């Protein structure tokens, strides 16, 4: 016999969990008592949202399931944002929330919130514990659901009285969920059809999304592209799925992607979409998206097939499984690379005519794009994990930083959560202690979860925080400049706080950089400091991200 909470710790260990993020409170006191001598490392964040994003960052960097604990009421409502974020980006995280004891449920008890109800639309699945004996089975089901199929967040709400009960704990063998049977094996006939279509295509493009990274299918994707030299573009979430820079790499796709990538999609006759969902930031005006193309759509989630763009050859299943088989079918057809010569000529011309560019400053001022390039150089061509927040800095990083490997680029893509970057980087750094972890943030985004700086200091987690400081809510300012007659409404951030002093108050190093001429060396020196470091890099105040597909426009009409 043991307390149900001790059984939870046993289940976590059986699932291979060695670190969790969280915040204790009244309703999860039993859980934290069990944690005390469980041997599982607990990182005490400063806000539950930080805990949720840290668990996401951990999951994204490691490929394992992240775990976050929060108490009832405000603890639970504080994880609503990371839950939604994890749902949008298919991140496997299990959230454990405390709940008031069962007799208080529904009575507006102290720190009671209807967590199960509030979170229902933003979870892959959720459980409300009804009886203590079901807890071990539910924990394993939660991990299974979070990790398999299209990954996603699972929540377990635990009334405090049930977790204190003694149960007869037996390790749980296999998980049986009759209503949950994700398709992993792609249909062989469809795969054969796809290979044929690819071998016959004259203007093919591979369009890879975050699903390729979730499926650990980057090497299969790369090999497929290398068979006869297919052009590849990735979504924001897919960066790192194909090594960049590379001769076959067209750059990022979408609203702030390269002209080359967007034009190639526009003129393609065949688009091979893998683990991507034709988001509006990719397609622009849907009716004019890739008008000449047929679509092969490979996705683990049948609900994504033909959701936005009708698929001609849908293949439902695990991308790793499908791409490996598609690769062998495709190789078997011995496709002729010569058929792509004309296409590559066209692509090369776009590349020559429309490289990513910006006007550098005439003085010492740091242009934001230059900051990203300097960071790339200072990290020996991107040898690090880079998380970002949301906004201009994120788009410039996506454009000017490159990744040769997956799980190095930590993003909040679907939800676009400001405040995601710092805690997510913290989680990534905990998952990959041997890699250097950097978060590039903006002066606005960083302030949304900057309390986690003291978590970094407390645990000596050596995340380097680079703040691209332009004193503005930069992306909103850009839209007001372009689409709202420069009426700058509520976007000026002023120069506060003093990030160097803030860093020091939080127990981190603080460095301010203002001079582009010494920037690479200064960055190198700051990144070499022990422990967490905050680098306040002052950049041009009013700079806009280009090129851009204006909202509701077609790729053909990119500006800038």
């Amino acid at each position, binding site marked *: 016999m043991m307390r149900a909470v001790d059984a939870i710790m046993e289940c976590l260990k059986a699932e291979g969990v060695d670190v969790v993020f969280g915040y204790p409170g009244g309703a999860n006191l039993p859980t934290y008592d069990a944690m005390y001598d469980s041997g599982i490392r607990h990182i005490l964040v400063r806000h539950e949202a930080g805990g949720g994003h840290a668990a996401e960052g951990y999951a994204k960097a490691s490929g394992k399931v992240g775990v976050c604990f929060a108490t009832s009421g405000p603890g639970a409502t504080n994880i609503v944002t990371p839950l939604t974020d994890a749902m949008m980006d298919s991140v496997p995280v299990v959230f454990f929330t405390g709940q008031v004891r069962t007799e208080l449920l529904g009575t507006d008890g102290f720190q009671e919130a209807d967590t*199960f*109800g509030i979170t*229902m*639309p933003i979870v*892959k*699945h*959720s459980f*409300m514990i*009804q009886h203590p004996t079901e807890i071990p089975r539910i924990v394993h089901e939660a991990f299974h*659901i979070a990790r398999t199929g299209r990954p996603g967040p699972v929540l377990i709400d635990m009334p405090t009285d049930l977790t204190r009960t003694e149960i007869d704990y037996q390790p749980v063998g296999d998980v049986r*969920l*009759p*209503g*949950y049977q994700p398709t992993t094996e792609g249909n062989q006939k469809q795969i054969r059809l796809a290979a044929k279509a690819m071998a016959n295509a004259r203007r093919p493009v591979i369009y890879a999304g975050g699903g390729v990274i979730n499926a650990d299918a980057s090497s299969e994707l790369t090999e497929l592209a290398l068979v006869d030299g297919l052009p590849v573009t990735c979504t924001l979430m897919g960066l790192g799925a194909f090594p960049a820079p590379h001769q076959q790499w067209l750059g990022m796709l979408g609203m702030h992607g390269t002209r080359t990538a967007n034009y190639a999609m526009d003129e393609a006759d065949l688009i091979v979409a893998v683990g991507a969902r034709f988001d509006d930031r990719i397609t622009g005006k849907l009716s004019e998206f890739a008008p000449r193309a047929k679509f092969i759509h490979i996705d683990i*989630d*049948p*609900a994504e097939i033909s*959701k936005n763009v009708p698929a001609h050859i849908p293949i439902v299943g695990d991308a790793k499984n499908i791409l490996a088989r598609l690769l062998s079918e495709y190789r078997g057809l011995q496709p002729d690379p010569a058929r792509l010569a004309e296409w590559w000529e066209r692509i090369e011309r776009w590349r020559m005519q429309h490289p990513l560019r910006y006007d550098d400053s005439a003085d010492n001022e740091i242009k934001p794009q230059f900051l990203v390039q300097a960071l790339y150089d200072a990290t020996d061509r991107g040898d690090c994990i880079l998380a970002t927040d949301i906004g201009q800095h994120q788009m410039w990083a996506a454009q000017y930083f490159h990744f040769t490997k997956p799980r190095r680029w930590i993003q909040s893509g679907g939800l676009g959560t400001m405040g995601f970057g710092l805690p997510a980087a913290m989680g990534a750094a905990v998952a990959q202690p041997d890699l250097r972890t950097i978060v590039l943030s903006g002066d606005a985004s960083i302030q949304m979860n900057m309390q986690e700086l003291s978590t970094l200091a407390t645990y000596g987690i050596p995340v380097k925080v680079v703040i691209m400081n332009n004193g503005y809510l930069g992306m909103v300012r850009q*839209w007001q400049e372009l*689409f*709202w*007659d420069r009426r700058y409404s509520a976007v000026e951030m002023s120069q506060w706080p003093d990030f160097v002093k803030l860093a020091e108050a939080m127990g981190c190093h603080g460095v301010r950089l203002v001079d582009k001429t010494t920037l690479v060396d200064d960055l190198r020196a700051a990144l070499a400091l022990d422990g967490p470091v905050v680098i306040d890099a002052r950049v041009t105040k009013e700079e806009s991200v280009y090129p851009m597909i*204006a*909202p*509701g426009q077609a790729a053909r009409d990119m500006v800038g």
Partner: protein
Amino acid sequence: MGEPGTKELLSLAELDAAAGVRTGRKHVLSILVENKPGVLTRIAGLFARRGFNIDTLVVGPTDDEALSRITLTVDGAMHPIDQVTKQLHKLVNVLKIRDLEPDEAVAREMALFKISADAGSRGEIMQVVEIFRAKIIDVQRRTVIVEVTGTHDKVEAFERMVRPFGLVEMARTGEIALSRGRGET
């Protein structure tokens, strides 16, 4: 349509036109679910999120006590219905969904009508009741309650017939349905 974030104005007419794409085809969805708390909310939520109005909804036990059957009717454009059924499939507690074609299934609903009936009109009401093979299940001095079972159209027709007598109130179950033939719904 204007994108959020741009200055372009939207007219109310444009908004209405975009919202009101209805095929007029009624869908009868039969959904087999695990009998667990929250299942109904999850299902209803998927419709609500897309702004679909559920016309009728019936939940009841099946031959297996661990399972319940939800029969739900909704009017929607073909494409979004397809999206919703795909999303429904993804719910962990949902085992099976069928969008029942009218000629491959039988569907029935039950209704109770409380009708004003004094000595003068009672006879005439009883005739209507007989024609519709309905049943009077309660008689008071000024009202009768009638039970009608049948197709959606039959219940509608009965309602039209008795309304002139003075319909005090009415309760309808919404349709339940099973597919024809040996195969399971």
